[in-house]
């Protein structure tokens, strides 16, 4: 996962990432960077222009903070990457793929897409990925 272009997610979504190597800081950061490049950057750009979308993403981010953090601080890179990988892998079991930002119709975006964009927003807040 250290190639220049973001990896094709429909291929990598079938791989289970629960190995300890995925938790290490460089792997987690790389994953979040790839996710941001694929979906997060575009989504957050659209959200910056659309307040409704931004509010929904904020609520998703709050829920994620409650789930994997202590509710107040932004979770770390390992936790964020683990959450996003859990979503993606379970989505693969349900035959759902992570779309890229330009494939998403933002007014009718799905729940998992907004969750992943919220993960990217949290990563940006923590300074992990842009």
């Amino acid at each position, binding site marked *: 996962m250290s190639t220049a272009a973001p990896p094709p997610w429909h291929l990598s979504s079938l791989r289970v990432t629960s190995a300890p190597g995925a938790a290490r800081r460089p792997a987690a950061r790389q994953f979040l960077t790839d996710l941001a490049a694929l979906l997060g950057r575009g989504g957050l750009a659209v959200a910056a222009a659309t307040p409704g979308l931004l509010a929904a993403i904020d*609520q998703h981010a709050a829920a994620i903070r409650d789930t994997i953090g202590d509710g107040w601080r932004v979770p770390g890179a390992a936790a964020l990457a683990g959450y996003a990988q859990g979503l993606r892998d379970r989505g693969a079991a349900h035959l759902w793929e992570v779309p890229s930002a330009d494939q998403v119709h933002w007014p009718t975006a799905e729940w998992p897409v907004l969750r992943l964009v919220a993960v990217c927003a949290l990563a940006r807040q923590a300074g992990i990925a842009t």
Partner: protein
Amino acid sequence: MSEILATPSVDVQGALSDMLRAVLLFLPKALLFVLILVVGFIVARVLRTFTNRILERVGFDRWVERGGIRSALARTRYDASDLVAKLVYYAVLLFALQLAFGVWGPNPVSDLISGVVAWLPKAFVAIVIVVVAAAIASAIKDLVTGALGGLSYGRLLANLAAYFIIGLGVIAALNQIGVATTVTTPVLIAVLATIAGILIVGVGGGLVRPMQARWEQWLDRAASESQAIAEHAKAYAAGQRDMDAAMAPAPADPAYAHAGAPTAADTAVGQPVPPPSTTTGPGYRISDEPTQVIPPTPPPGRDTTA
């Protein structure tokens, strides 16, 4: 009466005949002794010249030049083949002496010579040990000088190493010929123990604190990594749970009569199907109402310390 008068002459004759018998018994052995000595002497001289000639023809002196012996012999009028020939000469003489004294059965001189002959191999081995140790010491001295010559103490180290090895060789040779073993062995043990003690305390003791710092670093890194692994696993499980809840159709909504067949397109805009772990508003709706900023609060009844 003539018999009484005749007895002294018979005694003298008996004594004379006894003496003659003793001399006659002794004489062959003495002759054999002298014969063996003469023959041994002649054989020794012949062997000496023979060995000398052969070694010189073979070029033994050129081989010996490789070692440090040439410089040792340069000031004498012998060369190496001469020395070896002399050794052969004395060995043959010794052997002849042992044979010669052996004709008289066990006697102290024979025992002495046997003792010397038994000691000779040990002396030979001791000489070999010293020569080999000297060669190794000079080789190591060259090595160390070549490797560390640039340093100010390079020559000192090389000399120390060479003397140490020569000392070891000398002590080993002395032990081999059995000279003063009760002095040389304890001295060797004391020197080695001192060196070992200095190394242990100096090197080992000095390394204690840096190793402590290293260990702390490694353990901290392991702890933080294991914590990251635990967080990752927990978040992974949470992500899977949330996705499952998102993909499952809502149980009480009549619009989802086909509940039980989860598809990826269930959650669309406007249809409230929140997974139990989120707060309000799954998707978002275009509306003209002003958006409200809701501070993040954990929903009641949820376990936030999963």
